[in-house]
């Protein structure tokens, strides 16, 4: 039995005529300690998928199982790192993390809680900014706080919803390494949603493309057997990396074309010609 399991999961939005099935018949199995990346186009239902696993949404059909039990709502066992950080703007860094720690460890003493907050903030090198408000931080720093907040609850699974897509390329690279470093420590199960194939290959054990929605389904999986720790620059010359990368990108382009070809509407023009007639003099009356 897999650690996380999705069985024939479907999810639709809207009502009546406007109802569209975003995810259709998703089957996914993630083993404990595995790092899985799901790659897909924007708007293909990736966030919906993560919301279903985290328990923020319920599937219309099928079921989401976590450790063999169906998911009924959010839980501390599954930490979520949101795409847009979702830090509370009125709390400083320490309190944002502290709130999560307090919820996850209700019986912990205040002193121990504060220690834990400091420890986790230090893990992402933000200790000097612990008293700053989110608005005083850069995008990369905010996302690091968000990562820390999720990790400080010591979840068993980390769900990452395009955590790095709003960042610039350099910050992105740094944060990828940082997340990998943290992940390497205790090898928790991780699910990364991304639109960047390179990011997926760099970080994950397995990449699964998500076919674009509506009615998105998962494509064939790609196992990544590159040795860890992976170095980004060294990877560029690695033959296996190149093969994998090209394979996945080719597949994505192919399904992308399929989508655009299925969407194409052809209009049949009526076979008529305009009749040209000499204009008679017309009197315009306003009655």
């Amino acid at each position, binding site marked *: 039995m897999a650690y996380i399991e999705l069985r024939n999961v479907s999810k639709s939005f809207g009502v009546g005529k406007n109802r569209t099935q975003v995810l259709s018949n998703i089957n996914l199995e993630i083993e404990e300690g595995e790092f899985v990346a799901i790659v897909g186009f924007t708007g293909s239902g990736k966030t919906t998928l993560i919301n279903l696993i*985290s328990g923020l949404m319920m599937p219309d059909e099928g079921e989401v199982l976590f450790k063999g039990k169906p998911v009924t709502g*959010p839980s501390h066992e599954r930490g*979520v790192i949101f795409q*847009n950080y*979702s830090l509370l703007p*009125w709390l400083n860094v320490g309190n944002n993390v502290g*709130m999560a720690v307090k*919820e*996850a460890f209700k019986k912990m003493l205040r002193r121990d809680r504060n220690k834990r907050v400091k420890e986790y903030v230090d893990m992402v090198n933000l200790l000097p900014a612990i008293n700053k408000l989110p*608005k005083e931080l850069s995008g990369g720093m905010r996302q690091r706080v968000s990562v820390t907040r999720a990790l400080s609850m010591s979840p068993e699974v980390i769900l990452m919803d395009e955590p790095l897509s709003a960042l610039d390329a350099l910050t992105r690279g740094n944060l990828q390494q940082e997340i990998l470093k943290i992940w390497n420590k205790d090898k928790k199960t991780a699910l990364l949603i991304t639109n960047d194939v390179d990011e997926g290959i760099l970080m994950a054990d397995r990449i699964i493309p998500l076919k674009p929605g509506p009615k998105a389904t998962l494509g064939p999986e790609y196992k990544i057997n590159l040795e860890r720790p992976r170095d980004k620059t060294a990877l560029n010359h690695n033959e296996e990396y190149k093969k994998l990368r090209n394979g996945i990108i080719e597949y994505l382009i192919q399904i992308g074309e399929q989508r655009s070809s299925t969407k194409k509407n052809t209009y049949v023009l009526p076979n008529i010609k305009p009749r040209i007639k000499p204009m008679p003099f017309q009197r315009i009356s306003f009655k």
Partner: protein
Amino acid sequence: MKDRSIHILNFVGLGFFEPAIRLVAGEEIKKNMVALFKKILLPILSVGLFLILWHSGARYLYNIEKNARIEKALVDQGEAASLEMRTCIESGDISCQPNTLPSPAQVWVAYKSLLADHRIISEKKSVFAEKVAATNEKRESQGLTAIKYTGRPSFVDQILTSLKTVFAGFLLALFIAVPIGIMLGLSNTLRSSVNWLIQIFKPVSPVVWLLLVFMIVKTLTKNSDSDSSFIISFISVGLCSMWATLVNTSMGVSSVEKDYINVAKVLQLSVGQKVFKIILPSSFPLIFTGLRITLSVAWMVLIAIELLAQSPGLGSFVWEEFQNGANDSNSKIIVAMFVIGIIGFLLDRIMLTIQKFVTFTEETT
């Protein structure tokens, strides 16, 4: 020191003094001179221009009134009377001055006379208090109420009374509107069920609110002989002004960003924690905007309500002066107008400062 004072000034909404402070510190003379000109000298110039316009307008009205009087004397009583009227007006005798829009100078004189009046009255008060001190002590030991000064209130007393009324009304609005607004914001059912009532009561004019409150309070206080005019006016002020806070609070609470709600869900906060730790802080900016509107509306309707309810305060001061029709009544009304305006401005600044203290956004309006 310099940076600190600039920060404080900006915080309380008096940022226009910043260039002056920077100039004193000798910082970027040229740039700050320009800023000083823009932020302080130009406003002063516009105030000056306003005073000149006011003065010439008052002059013009004065002349119309003056000529009409002379003309009237000529028509009614003949040549001699009209000449007498002209000399009387030009001599500046109070008894025959035309009554019209007062000039800035007259208003200034009236302002000073009001202050002098206040000094006289407060002196009278302290004399009175000394006189009755012994009697009051005796009365207190017998369980009787103390004798109070019941003379005419001075202008400053009226201001304080008005501030007291507006503050009481504001607190009433706060304690009614914020909790109800939160409840309405949290529950869609509740909101839609009282929506009609809110939409109907919101545009009702202050005068009607006053009459409504009067009907109720009059009946309720039938058996007590206490003065109900204060109660009536502050309740009416509260009821008139609470709508902005009510609507803003319920809107703020109901439109909390989905991301924050998701955070609450993922952290598995309880309902109470969700309300107090996520929903309320995130709707504070809107609640405070509502409270600021409420305070300014309260101050605005207060004058009208006091005027009608005959409760002491600036409103009744204005009305009494208008009825009084003394030579300097018009000037006193204008003084009251400026005082009302300036106090309204200060109240708004105070609210803005408090708002900046408790909310998280930087934006100010």
